[in-house]
């Protein structure tokens, strides 16, 4: 019997097979991360806690009805004006003495909020309100806080608050994280996000 050497496998079609797989993965890949508005829900209150009394002038009421209309402080308002109105309310700083706000640049109207620490935005929805409207309103209110926080961060540290926060959450950031964390906290305490949501009316 003649001694036969094993025939060589033809690898010419290997490229074709690899291409096929490549195209499959190319099509199915989605390199994306989800983005969205982060919020924290309030815990369910304990029964026998008496809610603290809040002055009416420190509450900024936003009501959205079933036709997706906005009623802000008893006045009809367009969505595009909401951010400015919220900024004016939060930045008012009408308080005196202990409640005075030395960094506020608002009108210091005594009938509006005393201090950003006291100012609360209250949002009331209807059960028939569209989710899109709700997100728009949320976005504008969060935007108002971000406008003020950016302004203060820019004034104190020459940097946007959103950028500071992004660096703080970035594990690869190679600056001083401790200092940055303190600064982020400080800005957050200047304009704390106090956004209260009532349970929707039907």
């Amino acid at each position, binding site marked *: 019997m003649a001694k036969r050497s094993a025939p060589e496998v033809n690898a010419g079609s290997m490229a074709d097979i690899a291409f096929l797989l490549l195209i499959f993965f190319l099509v199915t890949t989605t390199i994306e991360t989800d983005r969205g508005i982060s919020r924290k829900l309030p*815990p369910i209150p304990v029964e026998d806690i008496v809610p603290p009394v809040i002055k009416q002038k420190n509450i900024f009421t936003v009501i959205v009805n079933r036709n997706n209309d906005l009623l802000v402080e008893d006045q009809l308002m367009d969505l595009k004006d909401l951010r400015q109105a919220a900024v004016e309310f939060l930045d008012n700083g009408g308080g005196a003495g202990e409640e005075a706000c030395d960094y506020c640049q608002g009108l210091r109207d005594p009938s509006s909020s005393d201090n950003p620490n006291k100012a609360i935005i209250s949002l009331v929805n209807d059960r028939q309100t569209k989710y899109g409207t709700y997100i728009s309103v949320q976005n504008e209110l969060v935007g108002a806080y971000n406008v003020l926080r950016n302004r203060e961060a820019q004034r104190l540290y020459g940097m946007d608050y959103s950028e500071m926060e992004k660096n703080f959450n970035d594990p690869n950031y190679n600056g001083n994280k401790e200092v940055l964390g303190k600064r982020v906290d400080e800005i957050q305490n200047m304009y704390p996000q106090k956004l209260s949501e009532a349970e929707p009316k039907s």
Partner: protein
Amino acid sequence: MAKFTKKMGGELPAVNTASLPDIVFMLLFFFMVATVMRQNTLMIQNKLPFADQVEKLDKKDLVMYIYAGKPSPRYQQKYGTEARIQLNDKFAEVSDVQQFIYAERESKREELIPYLTTALKVDVETNMGLVSDIKQELRKAEALKINYTTRIGEVSKNLE
């Protein structure tokens, strides 16, 4: 001399393609590693709203997804057109949300549980009643960190 003249008349040599499979394989492996297969098959319409004050939601393993919206056209015969919740691969009731959160928590490592976030992927057209019910259930389950997943854009596009 004959040695040289023979080459002069010859054609251009073919490009060697022996390394082509290697290059393709390299690309293949890259995409295989980078691919994230969609975990859930959507049974609902899911047109997310627009927003611009957004934060990134990385660390996909720390996110629990809750979908809500109208059933897709091919499920409408069976389930109607009223907006519904989808958990994993099936429709669910509001009362199932708590159980879902507990089950998800169970499947994660204990030290990661405080970092879990719930992503709400809700269709623009959904009524707030359903969303509030979900939020109420999340509060009961003490899953307080939530994220309304959105697309990036001007909010005015939500009203169209």
